[in-house]
């Protein structure tokens, strides 16, 4: 192993015929497995070698969950503003807009999943750490209202470090706002499935993420109210192995199932069928 750690001087890439450009290669954060990017993408960013669930972009989740060509994005024009004149917020927003290629930390869509109509919201960690500000709250509220109108089940995939500090208490109130929408869905008996991905912490975990009629989590995802760093600080010692992982939450009774990304669509479909009085999908009768 020693030769791995040796600092090498960056050298000129050798020009070889048929060489694959370096940005085509990706490395698994968990096991170090290196593969062509395309291979990770085709496997929904699950490491082909160790099954580690890598981060995935919002539109990619839409791609694996909703039926092909069945969906359209909703409220794509909502944009964050800088209501508090917060230091450097406009610059950070601008940077995020450029880098993430999404309009904010969430994408909302309406479409079908296994031919069932569904409204889907997916948070995008690449946009300012998936932080929840006014736009995230408003998009969820509007998608929830669309669910109330059309009686479509709601599915939200969370990935967030928490509330967006730069919008102050306005972002804190998005927790209450999203909870208010979900309580309306509850009254009308419209199913809501919450999916927790890595990481789901802070204000997002302490609002809609933990309010699902069913709560699913991806393997290995870090889920909690306080981030591990904060707890380590108050504790003054290291956290127990596996603390705040999806599997830990399953054991403590906080989530219904830990679900492999490849099984997400099927599992959500099964849950929604049960909760909306629909017959089982083909193939479930015997299993």
């Amino acid at each position, binding site marked *: 192993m020693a030769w791995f750690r040796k600092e090498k001087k960056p050298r000129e890439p050798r020009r070889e015929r048929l060489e694959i450009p370096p940005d085509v290669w990706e490395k698994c954060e968990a096991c170090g497995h290196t593969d062509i990017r395309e291979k990770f993408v085709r496997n929904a960013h699950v490491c082909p070698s160790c099954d580690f669930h890598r981060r995935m972009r919002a539109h990619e989740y839409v791609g694996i969950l909703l039926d092909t060509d069945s969906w359209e994005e909703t409220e794509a*024009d*909502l*944009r*964050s*503003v800088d*209501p*508090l004149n*917060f*230091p*450097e917020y406009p610059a950070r927003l601008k940077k995020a807009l450029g880098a993430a290629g999404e309009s904010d930390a969430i994408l909302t869509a309406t479409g079908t999943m296994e031919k069932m109509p569904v409204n889907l919201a997916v948070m995008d960690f690449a946009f300012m750490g998936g932080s929840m*500000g*006014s*736009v995230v*709250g*408003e998009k969820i*509220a509007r998608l929830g209202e669309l669910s109330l109108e059309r009686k479509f089940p709601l599915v939200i995939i969370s990935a967030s470090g928490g*509330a967006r*500090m730069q*919008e*102050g*208490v*306005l972002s*804190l*109130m*998005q*927790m*209450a*706002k999203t*909870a*208010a*929408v*979900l*309580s*309306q869905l*509850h*009254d009308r008996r419209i199913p809501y499935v919450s999916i927790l991905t890595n990481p789901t912490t*802070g*204000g997002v*975990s*302490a*609002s*809609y*993420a*933990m*309010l699902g009629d069913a709560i699913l989590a991806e393997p290995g995802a870090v*889920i*909690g*109210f*306080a981030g591990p760093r*904060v*707890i380590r600080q*108050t*504790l003054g010692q290291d*956290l*127990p192995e596996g*603390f*705040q992982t999806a599997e830990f939450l399953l054991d*403590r*009774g*906080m989530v219904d199932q830990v679900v492999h990304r490849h099984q997400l669509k099927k599992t959500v479909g099964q849950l929604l069928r049960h909760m909306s009085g629909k017959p089982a999908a083909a193939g479930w009768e015997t299993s």
Partner: protein
Amino acid sequence: MGTSALEFEKPIVEIEKQIDELKRMAEEKSMSVDAELAPLVDKLQAMRAEIYRTLTPIQRVQVARSPRRPFTLDYLRLCFTDFIELHGDRAFRDDASIVGGWARLEGETVMVIGHQRGRDTKENLYRNFGMPHPEGYRKALRLMKLAEKFHVPVLTFIDTSGAWAGLGAEERGQSEAIARNLFEMSELAVPIIATVIGEGGSGGALALGVADRVLMLEHSVYSVISVEGCAAILWKDGKSPETREKAASALKITAPDLLELKIIDGIIPEPVGGAHADHAAMAQTLHDVLIENLDELKRLKPEKLIHRRREKFLQMGRYED
């Protein structure tokens, strides 16, 4: 009164000392000092008024956190009668950082629930510095549902730097407990009035704060993150006075700021020199404001109440469409 005085209150404490000294002398020598006392008392009032009129955001944070301010149990003693405390979440344990129970406001039964801090180290350890575990929020929810069952209004007092971050709190579902309260409070079929009496720290505060009326005492603060946390993230320095002051200003956490942002519904004025300068006067004002708000809310049918409450929170946020 000299103990744990805030830095900017030093001149006030100085005059208080002079007044005490004068009174002591008068008693010792049984002579009248009224002539000497009067100008000092005037000076004290003027100075309190001046200092408190120009409080900066970070000074308000210090005031809000002061152990000399009235806490939930103080208001229970001063504004209410016939209080009987109810303990426990019926699942795990009693969390002393949240107190609650039946009480009477001007003779009528209400459910009072609030964060409870401690004044000294021993009390703070018992109260966990007013930072609840999940069972605290679950006790609060139990009491709210109890109030709903008997058509009794809920009055909450917010006074916490935040929900506790620790192993047990995480293990028992801190996120779920807070989320559940937000959810249930948005459809509780009785009037809810929430008052921030000290520090309103993040989700741990909001878990008692989804209300028909959200009020703040004049010098209290309400924030999505502690000023220290914000400063640490933004300027990699959560300790120096400069960065804390910058964070306190940037986060817009004062009552006037939040009224302007339509996050809260009203500000309750504090006595000259802050709530801690005169507990009784503060309690009297709070008492009157609560009655006034409750009278308005009691006229609304439950469906209307819930509809309005939800709509209020659904309107919160600023964005470009």
